[in-house]
């Protein structure tokens, strides 16, 4: 597994402090992050691949400072967003998956082979030539997963990947994420999906208020909500 380190990380948007003195050492394979709306979860996970640079402190992935090596880190860290529509760049399903592999020094044949394998893995090979924007919500999120995993990142970060999906697709995407050989960091509001995680972190008002096994972290979180 990789190691993600937050060393005294703080971040503000304008006047508003969104993260305060976060210290985390993440080495587990399946890490869940929960917390109320606006508590800072999205900001926290966006720091992992340098989409946001911290105001104070450093975030490192396997020792690499994310703020300074964003490009190298992004090749290691795949990111899944809540709304797969925003992640789709190319018109057809296969083209969108292949798009991730551009500029990686692969031959067209290698790209085609890896794209085909990723599509099959996520049950999208029937839709290879279909317009990506006409897929169902669940299929679009599968496409987003395929497009990220085709590049074989070491870490997969997902910010509420199932929020827009129905219960069945939520479960499917969560199971796929949990079944990956990669290290995964998942932000979610669907607490029932967290049982099989190795570690769950509760964020409240920009701080870590619980960091434990799913059962213990969730009971702390429920206490907070009560």
């Amino acid at each position, binding site marked *: 597994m990789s190691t993600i380190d937050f060393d005294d990380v703080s971040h503000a948007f304008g006047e508003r402090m969104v993260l305060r003195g976060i210290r985390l050492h993440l080495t587990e394979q399946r890490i869940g992050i929960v917390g109320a709306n606006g508590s800072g979860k999205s900001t926290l996970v966006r720091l992992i*691949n340098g*989409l946001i640079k911290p105001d104070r402190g450093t975030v490192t992935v396997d020792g690499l400072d994310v703020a300074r090596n964003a*490009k190298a880190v*992004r*090749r290691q860290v*795949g*990111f899944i*967003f809540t*709304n797969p*529509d*925003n*992640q*789709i*760049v*190319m*018109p*057809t399903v296969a*083209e969108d998956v*292949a*798009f*991730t592999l*551009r*500029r990686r020094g692969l031959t067209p044949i290698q790209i085609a082979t890896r794209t085909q394998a990723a599509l099959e893995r996520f049950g999208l090979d029937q839709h*290879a*030539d*279909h*317009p990506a*924007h*006409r897929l169902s919500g669940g299929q679009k999120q599968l496409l987003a997963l395929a*497009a*990220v995993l085709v*590049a074989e990142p070491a870490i997969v970060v997902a910010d509420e990947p199932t929020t827009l999906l129905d219960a069945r697709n939520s479960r499917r995407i969560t199971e796929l994420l949990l079944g990956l050989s990669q290290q995964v960091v998942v932000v979610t509001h669907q607490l029932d999906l967290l049982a099989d995680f190795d570690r769950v972190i509760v964020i409240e008002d920009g701080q870590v208020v619980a960091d434990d096994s799913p059962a213990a972290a969730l009971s702390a979180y429920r206490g907070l909500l009560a």
Partner: protein
Amino acid sequence: MIGLYSPGHSLVHRAPMLLKLVLLSFAVLGVGLLGELWQLSLCLFAVAALFLVARIPLGAAWKQIGPILWILVVAVPLQALFAGWATAGLMAGRLLIAVALAALFTLTTTVTAVLEGSQKLLRPLRRWVDADRVGLLLALTLRCIPLVAEIVTEVIEARRARGTQGSLLALAVPVVVRSLYAADAIGEALAARGLDD
């Protein structure tokens, strides 16, 4: 292209994109030089044959060519009035062939092929233009067409659901705002996929 692509493995699909583009250009120019109706009729048959070879579904072909037929229904009698039926027929034939060939090109060519082709074309200019960037820009522009269309539909539906009617401005503002948010999110997703350089 743009979701118009009609998947297939025919000769027309597999032909190199640049070859298709060159042939398309020459055909459109050539048809412009033909002065006899029987020549144009032969060409129309040839174009129809190409559609058959490519196995384009009738519905997909109609979607592309249908609109131009409506225009011709109005334009041909008008031109016949001023310039005679022969000239009107020539004009109609040329237009129809050009539109049908262009449609055949879009129906059988993926955006990826167009991107790669344009990159090859731009290669001699690489000291001044980043072909990859131009290609990416093109892809994103194409990507935005269905996205904005979807946003417009949703905004219209939301207005209808709330029973509001309003000026064009009242429609444009939420569409622009939402498009900008979407553009922001797509930019972020591009960066996450390592394509922001």
